[in-house]
């Protein structure tokens, strides 16, 4: 989003996707092949999201200096597994590294792992694990919340567990303790094997081994992120010092993307600190293998990182590296200094005043001003964010798809993009942004050309569709509509007002715009009763490289009363298509088939129109003239780390001193 990203919800998978950018080896169609540098997967291949990518000449790179930037929020914690903040992730990604890494286009490369392979893939469903399951009681909390009362991390629940359990009922579950037994018997969906680099050292000098990897993954158990991990992960085990076996529950085309890039910590952390304690505010320094280490942290004020002199990486270690031999082995700068400044206006002022070198999360008008100014460069990249308007599909008259499509045809996407976002956000002609085109389409441009007519502004067609819907349902017009959004994003409010105005210009609708403070709005959207209110909700969401989230998060029953199926949408055909696009041996082994199936998904979504997709985001970093080589990553989470150094993209930023 060009706007401050605080009012954009991360979709359920995005944080993991973007942070661990694991590599979908979707392109690796045969078991046992190397997963390095595979395309994001589909027949269309990956699209570099970085617009006007700036490249550097290695001989011109100047070493040293402090790269200064600012973020909008204090890091909630340096404990990755307990963090829910994108702003904190920016800092995590400087310190920590995972088994894999990702390019800006979403391609996955081995990183701490010298190589990895998919050893095996086979059909497996939750029912296949029932023989290994144990039991645990359901407990009832206050306000009737019922949960399975166990301290163990639940991996899989028995599909036959009661839909509406009561306190005292028994649940059958597979926990991390029994998962190993299932794997030992050959019950799993996928098996990956990682060969680790030898000689990788943590910031404390300890050498990384397979045991560190296992302990680091186990640290995710019962954490804030556990729900995102254990919907895929079955089991992880060390095989000697430098081999790690990782098992997924089901054949999942996105498994490696979901599971490959969790941070690896030294035993000083995993053996001695309880979950949540790896934070300077708790008196503990976060430790990883990353190119930077935490040097100084003033809570709510600033964080300073210094280059880790003994960082392990050399370009020659990677077969996939095809850059010049002179390309540096790590970041050019000595230091990254991040101020914590909640106000985007103040961050912009600090950039103008030469107190920081890079700012992001600025409003569209501010970006345009920078674009027209000497002394600064805007670096736009197709983002993972999108806006959407969700219809109350279970409430009359919105049960009628024609009526929903009529409203969709009244959304002036191009005008919104041009007038409100000054071109910084792009019309969402299809639900899938270009960022995820590689795995989500066989030919993105062709798909857009084929499906764009669903989303073009056309009052004539809208009138016709609305008239048909009104006649079919026998309802009176104008239909009173309440359209809601969050009040603390001016551009979004203007977008909603424009949509309302467009709808009101027809004889069919009488629209009232209702705005609420972000958290108030979100707490209502996430309630179990919002769908009964019959209101249209407009909000932003952040996805990732995996196309799945762009459909599932806003449509699937699993996401009801969570993010972001607020209206209790349940379209059976779509649910089935989504399953078939991601899960199954066939789509794991054939990336083109997966992409084809996603194209069917997008068409169904546009046909049903339970959600109208508004715009796709552009993430823009603005740098001053002393910054050379800066390119913006497609998600906030790695906007600094990627810019400093990303070997797959031969990305390095240096300061002209």
């Amino acid at each position, binding site marked *: 989003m060009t706007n401050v990203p605080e009012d954009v919800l991360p979709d359920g998978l995005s944080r993991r996707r973007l942070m661990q950018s694991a590599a979908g080896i979707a392109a690796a169609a045969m078991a046992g092949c190397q997963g390095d540098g595979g395309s994001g997967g589909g027949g269309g291949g990956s699209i570099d999201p970085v617009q006007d990518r700036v490249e550097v000449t290695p001989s011109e790179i100047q070493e040293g200096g402090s790269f200064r930037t600012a973020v909008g929020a204090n890091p909630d914690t340096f404990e990755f597994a307990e963090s*829910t903040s994108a702003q904190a992730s920016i800092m995590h990604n400087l310190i920590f590294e995972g088994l894999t890494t990702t390019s800006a286009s979403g391609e996955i490369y081995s990183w701490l792992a010298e190589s990895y392979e998919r050893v095996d893939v086979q059909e497996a469903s939750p029912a296949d694990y029932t023989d290994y399951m144990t039991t645990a009681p359901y407990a009832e909390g*206050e306000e009737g*919340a019922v*949960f399975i009362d166990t301290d163990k991390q639940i991996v899989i629940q028995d599909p036959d567990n009661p839909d509406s359990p009561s306190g005292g009922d028994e649940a059958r579950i597979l926990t991390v303790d029994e998962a190993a037994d299932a794997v030992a018997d050959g019950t799993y969906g996928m098996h990956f094997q990682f060969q680790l680099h030898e000689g990788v050292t943590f910031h404390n000098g300890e050498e990384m081994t397979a045991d560190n990897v296992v302990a680091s993954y186990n640290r995710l158990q019962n954490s*804030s992120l556990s729900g995102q991990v254990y919907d895929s992960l079955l089991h992880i085990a060390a095989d000697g010092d430098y081999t790690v076996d990782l098992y997924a529950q089901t054949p999942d085309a996105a498994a490696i993307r979901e599971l490959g890039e969790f941070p690896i910590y030294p035993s000083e952390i995993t053996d001695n600190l309880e979950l949540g304690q790896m934070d300077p505010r708790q008196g503990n320094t976060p430790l990883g293998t990353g190119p930077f280490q935490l040097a100084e942290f003033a809570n709510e004020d600033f964080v300073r990182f210094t280059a880790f002199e003994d960082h392990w990486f050399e370009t020659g270690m990677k077969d996939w590296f095809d850059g010049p031999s002179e390309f540096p082995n790590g970041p050019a700068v000595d230091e990254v200094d991040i101020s914590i400044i909640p106000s985007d206006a103040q961050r912009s002022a*600090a950039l103008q*005043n030469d107190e920081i070198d890079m700012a992001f999360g600025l409003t569209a008008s501010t970006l345009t001003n920078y674009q027209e100014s000497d002394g600064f460069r805007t670096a736009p990249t197709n983002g993972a964010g999108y806006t959407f308007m969700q219809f109350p599909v279970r409430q009359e008259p919105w049960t009628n798809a024609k009526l929903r499509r009529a409203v969709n045809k009244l959304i002036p996407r191009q005008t919104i993009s041009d007038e409100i976002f000054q071109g910084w956000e792009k019309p969402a002609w299809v639900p899938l942004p270009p960022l995820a085109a590689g795995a989500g389409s066989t030919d993105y441009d062709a798909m857009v050309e084929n499906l764009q007519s669903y989303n073009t502004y056309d009052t004539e067609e809208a009138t016709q569709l609305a008239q048909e819907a009104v006649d079919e349902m026998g309802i009176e017009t104008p239909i009173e509509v309440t359209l809601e959004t969050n009040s603390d994003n001016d551009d979004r409010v203007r977008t909603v007002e424009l949509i309302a105005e467009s709808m009101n210009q027809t004889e069919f609708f009488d629209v009232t715009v209702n705005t609420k403070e972000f958290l108030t709005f979100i707490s209502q959207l996430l309630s179990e009763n919002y769908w009964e209110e019959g209101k249209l909700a407009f909000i932003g969401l952040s996805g990732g490289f995996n196309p799945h989230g762009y459909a599932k998060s806003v449509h699937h029953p699993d996401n009801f009363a969570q993010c*972001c199926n607020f209206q209790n949408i349940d379209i059976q055909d779509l649910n089935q298509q989504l399953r078939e696009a991601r899960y199954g041996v066939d789509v794991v082994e054939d990336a083109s088939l997966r992409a084809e199936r996603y194209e069917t998904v997008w068409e169904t979504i546009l046909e049903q129109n339970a959600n109208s997709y508004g715009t796709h985001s552009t993430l823009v970093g603005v740098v001053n003239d002393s910054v050379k080589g800066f390119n913006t990553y497609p998600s906030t989470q790695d906007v600094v780390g990627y810019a400093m150094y990303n070997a797959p993209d031969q990305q390095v930023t240096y300061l002209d001193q």
Partner: protein
Amino acid sequence: MSLRRFIVKRLLLVFPILFGVSVITFALVQLTPGDPIDVVVALNPDISPAEEARLRARYGLNDPIWSQYIQWLTDVLRGDFGTVIATDRAVSDVIVERLPETIALGLFGWVFAVVIAIPTGIYAAVRKDELGDHVSRFVALSGISIPNFWLGLMLILVGSLIVGAWPVLPPRKPLYHPETLWYLLLPGITIGTASASTLMRIMRSSMAEEMNKEYVTAARAKGLPERTVVLKHVLRNSLISVTTVAAFLTASIVAGSVVVESVFGWPGLGQALVGAVRNREIDLILAITLFIGVAIILANLAADIMYAVLDPRIRYD
């Protein structure tokens, strides 16, 4: 009533007032949709309902509101102001961390107000109805009328972006470092301007009133130099009302810190309160609100005491 009894009585009133403040604040926060766990869920949508329920239970958010309040009050009486859920930090740690920043800013604003207001007020009173008086009154009226946030933004625009003399970001040096004064200047002026304007107007009217009194006429008749008359006789008597108002203005400076700290990114209690409200961190909201309440009550009490000390004719009934 003696001054001592008056002070004791006022101090005893602090507790019911703070109780009332806490009840009202607690109720207002409860009336607002959402709680800290909603923030966690919004940022981490894959969190399971079971985990959400567990978190709510852990922080007592499922308990009845009255029960939550009693629990909070009991903890506070034991010196435990609760936890910031998002960061799992003790509220008292946050207060201790940020209080010096707010005190420094408030103190600077207060000193600025006094230093600007008193000479200007004297000048305006001495030059009553002349051009200098009109100009100073106009400036004072503007200072009262201009909103804090707008003045702050203008000072950033001019001082930092046009002149380039002041930094935009807050200082990284310790508060006692001389360089910090430079950083304090713009937010300090912003927070102190309205108070300076109010004080100046009171100073002027108080001085003008005193200068019409008979003892001033007598002093002049004795042939005392005008400077002596103004600074020795008139000023001393005028300062009684100004001093009490200056104490009262402490309250507005404390309250103003919320806006000013947000505009300048000053890492004090005011900025923490804004963040706490946004994230529904009720323990932190209550603690900072209580702190502000205590500061205002003590400032008002100090004003009353000073008034009595400066003017022995005052009796509290």
